């Protein structure tokens, strides 16, 4: 499997942590989330409320919602497991976190927010359509997003089932169904409005719990220096500059997860939502801060468990993904373990909600607009689409493990290769053309689907460190520039005057 995409999937059962404390905290946690979602659902009266949180949200709300959408359950389970398994090389996934938000803010924030002001855009494909004056570009973008999000929703529902299976000692199928019912309940009624406000609660808990867990890691390991010396003495390769990865693989992680952030529709669409665009000034500072605080759990548990196992203080793990559950159950107070376990479920639910919103918008808004048949009642159709996509994803998660995993690995490459050139660069370069954008998105779509499928079927595999997602991103960038250059005479005609004004504002 393509490591860059495959590591985002959670398919390994989590050790059962089901204790009365964990069950009670989980029930309280979900009840609070349910209460917030119900409150938000009552405020959802229009399609704007449903897709872009209506009249807008404040800076802190946007920051925490963006953080919750960015950091899925992977940061709590798969990330520490990967770090435990391959060493420092795994950190290259998150090392770019200190650069990506300022990068995204410079490239996208102001222009997307102003585009919302002058065109009333509600989705990311809307912005692509407006930029290139093209319904076809909007349609291709929507198709790519729909394919990617369907896989992401299905894989995240499967992950949610695994978490709920562990917390409540139910079967995996029941876990998937319970999780899907909860997320669909608040997503279909409250849309992104419910998601944003539950994300504020969940994001705060995630950041605070991560800092507390990191403190426990340091105390139980005798400090970071002691942890490092324990590892250096027995497994020095773990603390080598690339860990146990090749330099190419580690650097591919850095570039893909750094530049690819510019193409994550569930995160960048939050720029539409900020009520006062002047507050964008402080967004990178706040977002980078909460991202780094929350990533402490990823870093701390990965190193702490490795040192604990090497020193004999912890039993060897059956599977790398057991790192977080094992540490929480063996080394942290029960109340903290309970909060983190609930936080993992909440993190997955927040991600599912964000993706459902993006996918429902593609079905309800972007594809009909691209076909020239806009929907009259977008709120109603949006709710129905959310349910339909959720039910389809649930069925995929329950019935077809192989297909779910295949769909899941399309996600990252599709987002990055279709949106980074056409949107992040296109909104900053008047020389980009409609033909360049459509060709670039088509190449990104085709290369990702073909090579990920061939890789999955073991027909063709790239050399170690080369990923289909990375290749798709590079080829779509080259196509974007080359075709835009070939069709440069049409650049001015492909850019409406009001959109040009936004790009220059």
């Amino acid at each position, binding site marked *: 499997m393509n490591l860059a995409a495959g590591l985002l999937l959670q398919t390994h059962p989590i050790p059962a942590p089901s204790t009365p404390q964990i069950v009670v905290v989980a029930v309280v946690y979900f009840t609070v989330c349910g209460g917030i979602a119900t409150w938000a659902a009552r405020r959802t009266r229009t399609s704007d409320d449903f897709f872009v949180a209506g009249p807008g949200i404040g800076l802190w709300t946007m920051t925490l919602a963006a953080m919750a959408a960015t950091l899925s359950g992977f940061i709590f389970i798969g990330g520490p497991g990967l770090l435990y398994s391959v060493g*420092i090389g795994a*950190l290259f996934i*998150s*090392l*770019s*976190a*200190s*650069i990506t*938000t*300022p*990068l995204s*803010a*410079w*490239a996208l924030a*102001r222009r997307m927010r102003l585009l919302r*002001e*002058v065109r009333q855009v509600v989705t990311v494909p809307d912005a692509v359509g407006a930029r290139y*004056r*093209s*319904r*076809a570009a909007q349609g291709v973008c929507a198709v790519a997003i729909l394919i990617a999000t369907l896989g992401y929703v299905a894989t995240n529902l499967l992950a949610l089932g695994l978490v709920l299976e562990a917390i409540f000692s139910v079967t995996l199928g029941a876990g998937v169904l319970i999780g899907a019912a909860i997320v669909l309940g608040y997503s279909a009624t409250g849309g992104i409005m419910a998601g944003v406000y539950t994300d504020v609660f969940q994001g705060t808990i995630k950041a605070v719990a991560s800092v507390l867990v990191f403190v426990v890691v340091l105390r139980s390991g005798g*400090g*970071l*220096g002691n*942890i*490092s*010396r324990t590892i*250096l003495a027995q497994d*020095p390769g773990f*603390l*080598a*500059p690339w860990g146990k990865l090749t*330099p*190419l693989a580690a*650097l*591919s992680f*850095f*570039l893909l997860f750094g*530049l690819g952030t*510019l193409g994550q529709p569930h995160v960048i669409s939050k720029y539409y939502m900020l009520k*006062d*665009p*002047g507050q*964008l*000034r*402080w967004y*990178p*500072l706040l977002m*980078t801060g909460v991202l780094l605080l929350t990533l402490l759990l990823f870093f701390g548990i990965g190193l702490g468990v490795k040192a604990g196992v090497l020193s004999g203080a912890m039993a060897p793990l059956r599977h790398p993904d057991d790192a977080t559950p094992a540490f929480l159950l063996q080394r942290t107070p029960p109340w903290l373990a309970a909060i983190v376990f609930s936080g993992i479920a909440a993190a997955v639910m927040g991600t599912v909600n964000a993706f459902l919103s993006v996918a429902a918008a593609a079905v309800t808004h972007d594809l009909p607009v691209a076909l020239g048949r806009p929907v009259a009642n977008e709120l109603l159709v949006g709710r129905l689409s959310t349910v339909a996509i959720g039910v389809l994803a649930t069925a995929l998660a329950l019935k077809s493990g192989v297909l779910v995993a295949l769909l899941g690995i399309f996600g990252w490459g599709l987002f990055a290769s279709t949106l980074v050139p056409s949107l*992040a*660069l296109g909104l*900053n370069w008047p020389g980009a053309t*409609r033909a360049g954008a459509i060709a670039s998105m088509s190449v990104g779509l085709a290369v990702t689907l073909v090579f990920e499928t061939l890789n999955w079927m073991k027909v063709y595999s790239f050399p170690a460190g080369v990923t289909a997602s990375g290749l798709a991103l590079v080829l779509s960038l080259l196509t974007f520039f080359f075709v835009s250059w070939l069709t440069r005479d049409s650049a001015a005609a492909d850019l*409406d*005057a*009001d959109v040009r*004004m*936004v*790009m*220059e504002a």
Partner: protein
Amino acid sequence: MIAGSALVMAATMALGALRSGVRTGPVALMAGFVLIVIAAGFGAPVLLPAETVNSPLILGLPLRVAIEVFGVGVLPALVLPLSFAVAFRADGLDDGSLAELRRRATELRARVEAGPDHR
């Protein structure tokens, strides 16, 4: 690959900042900072010798990993968001300016509607 990653990230940031009306000098400083941090942060560990169990630690980490974690992972978090806050232009983002922007956009669109249809 190190140079390529550094160049792509720095160039994208420079493009976005320049298009946002930031002057060339501050943009060059920010892009240069990103370029140097990534190139040096990933390049220096390649050139340095491997640590042993008795090697000195930097804030609890072996030198080469410390350069990556604190140099690439933490240092930009102290510099780039503050640079953004300082260089960010808030003009044109108040309610009055936004209303004017909407009015001008409506005027421009009215002219466009007389042109070729969307494809």
